[in-house]
């Protein structure tokens, strides 16, 4: 089959690789009909997540048709399914608590050696997201082997198009969980750093959950415009002092909740960010935490910090003092996708949520490297890339 594989920093290629097979009883094999490039893939592309190997198939946002089923799979050949990027067994302590991205049983035992020293515990397996999360071949391919296919994939009834449901695999639940982690109350202001797909879905979700006001922060005019169209107030951080602006836009109180939808590769020329960039380049496992620091300074006393943005290593100059003295709460994690898919599918079907407004480019899988290049370096226009195999 054809698949997008990693060859090094800023070097991804579409190669011919062996087709996947059923390996375990609960597996299914999916023929991919649509897949997307995620901001998380850019962390791999930039080489700032450890444990990606040459030849690894990337991609964790995908959907398609079931073509093969293992003897314990509950799927049927021909069904159209969206596959969560988190691989979860559905039986362990964490899965029972709906903490699917903490699943104990999906990250192969021998791969956990990498994660345990780094994080204390291994996480669930994820598709196409480095050896740290199991080394599972990803979804930017013609076919994918889907473990625990009786738990993860959601069957899509006739009606919605692929594009309308594809983002159930990751960014829609991610934006939703980011807003849920804000515990929004009446009159609340939520400030969102980053107007990429995750930030945009967080804006939409926070408004649906009843936020009085959502402030979206970025520097790309087109992305800010998408946030504005959803109903957010926007701040262009190149033009405006973010800390002063959010305080002045909240009656001097500060936002009740803040969302870091940027993660470990914050842009900008702030001194802390410049130092972090150097450390990241020389590869000492350092994260770039400018947005997180700014969000913690901006949030009101006793407020909530929600962090869907991905971090992989260590952060210094973390404002521990501000965090403690202001009495903040912090919630984060890889999204527990399976917890949200059914509810969000219903909201899509009822027209409550718009999922296609952020798609800017549709490419055949063969052109995926061009998609990566532009989603990485031409972010203002390239807001979300959908790839279709076999076209």
């Amino acid at each position, binding site marked *: 089959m054809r698949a997008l594989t990693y060859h090094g920093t800023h070097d991804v290629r579409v190669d011919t690789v062996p087709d996947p097979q059923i*390996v375990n009883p*609960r597996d299914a094999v999916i023929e991919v009909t649509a897949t997307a490039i995620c901001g998380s893939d850019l962390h791999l592309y930039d080489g700032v997540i450890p444990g990606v190997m040459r030849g690894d198939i990337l991609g964790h946002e995908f959907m398609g048709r079931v073509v093969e089923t293992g003897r314990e799979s509950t799927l049927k050949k021909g069904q159209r399914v969206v596959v969560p990027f988190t691989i979860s067994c559905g*039986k362990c302590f964490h899965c029972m608590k709906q903490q699917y991205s903490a699943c104990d*049983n*999906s990250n192969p035992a021998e791969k956990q050696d990498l994660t345990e020293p780094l994080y204390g515990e291994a996480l669930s397996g994820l598709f196409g997201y480095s050896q740290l999360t199991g080394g*599972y071949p990803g979804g930017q391919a013609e076919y994918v082997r889907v473990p625990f296919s009786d738990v993860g994939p959601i069957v899509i009834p006739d009606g919605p198009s692929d594009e309308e449901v594809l983002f159930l695999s990751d960014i829609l639940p991610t934006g939703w969980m980011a807003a849920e982690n804000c515990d929004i109350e009446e009159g609340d202001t939520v400030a969102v750093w980053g107007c990429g797909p995750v930030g945009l879905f967080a804006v939409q979700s926070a408004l649906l959950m009843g936020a009085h006001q959502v402030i979206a922060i970025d520097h790309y005019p087109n992305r800010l415009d998408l946030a504005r169209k959803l109903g957010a107030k926007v701040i262009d951080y190149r033009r405006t002092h973010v800390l002063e602006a959010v305080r002045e836009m909240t009656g001097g109180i500060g936002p009740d909740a803040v969302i870091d939808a940027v993660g470990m590769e914050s842009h900008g020329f702030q001194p802390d960010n410049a130092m972090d960039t150097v450390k990241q380049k020389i590869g000492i496992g350092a994260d770039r935490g400018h947005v997180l620091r700014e969000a913690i300074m901006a949030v009101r006393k006793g407020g909530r910090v929600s962090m869907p943005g991905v971090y992989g290593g260590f952060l210094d100059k973390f404002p521990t003092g501000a965090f403690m003295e202001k009495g903040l709460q912090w919630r984060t994690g890889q999204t527990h996708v399976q917890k949200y898919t059914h509810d969000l599918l219903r909201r899509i079907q009822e027209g409550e949520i718009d999922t296609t407004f952020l798609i800017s480019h549709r490419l055949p899988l063969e052109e995926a490297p061009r998609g990566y290049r532009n989603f990485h370096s031409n972010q203002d226009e390239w807001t979300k890339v959908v790839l279709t195999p076999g076209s």
Partner: protein
Amino acid sequence: MNKHETGRHRGLGGRDLALILGTGLLAAGAVTFWHHSRQPRPPVPPDSAPGRTSRQGRYGDYAVSGRSVTINRPRGEVYAFWRDFSNLSRFMSNVAAVKTEGDLTTWTIAAPAGRTVTVRTRIVSERENEEIVWRSVEGSDIDTEGKVSFRDAPGGRGTEVEAVIAYVPPVGRLGQMIAKLFGREPRIQGRHELKRLKMLMETGEVATSRNRVTD
């Protein structure tokens, strides 16, 4: 002072090992470490941590390692699965075969270059649904003993399985080969095995990222 004796199951190592394993096989009663050392130490009571997490790595000739895992299945089921030793090769990757005759078990362990190591053990005590203790017998390639215990986990979380293995790292050519097999990272090995056991019991399969049966 018999500190430097190396005889099997004798000396300081043996007694401390018994404490660690809690088998009570080798030591009469609860003897504490500092009673044996030359310098009297202040009588600080031991803490609540399992002995194998002690900063002291060796117990006489014995290297000890162990690990706990909580399995979301009833105790009787987990015990029965383990007690059927033919199941063990399903989650112990080095174990090629397990043969049981009476209370004697022969483990065939795959080693590099097509060689095998044979370990013969006898169950020295067992309590149904609670624990199994075994020790190597004459003719075993490795001098080892171990214990696995099963307890109800709190809050309906299933069963806590705790496995502790002690062995004398052998010397010579065979020793080097065995050290390669287990000696380097027995902790990691043990963790892999218990995690695979958990996967099997909870999900019915062992997770793998292989994309093809033959990979």
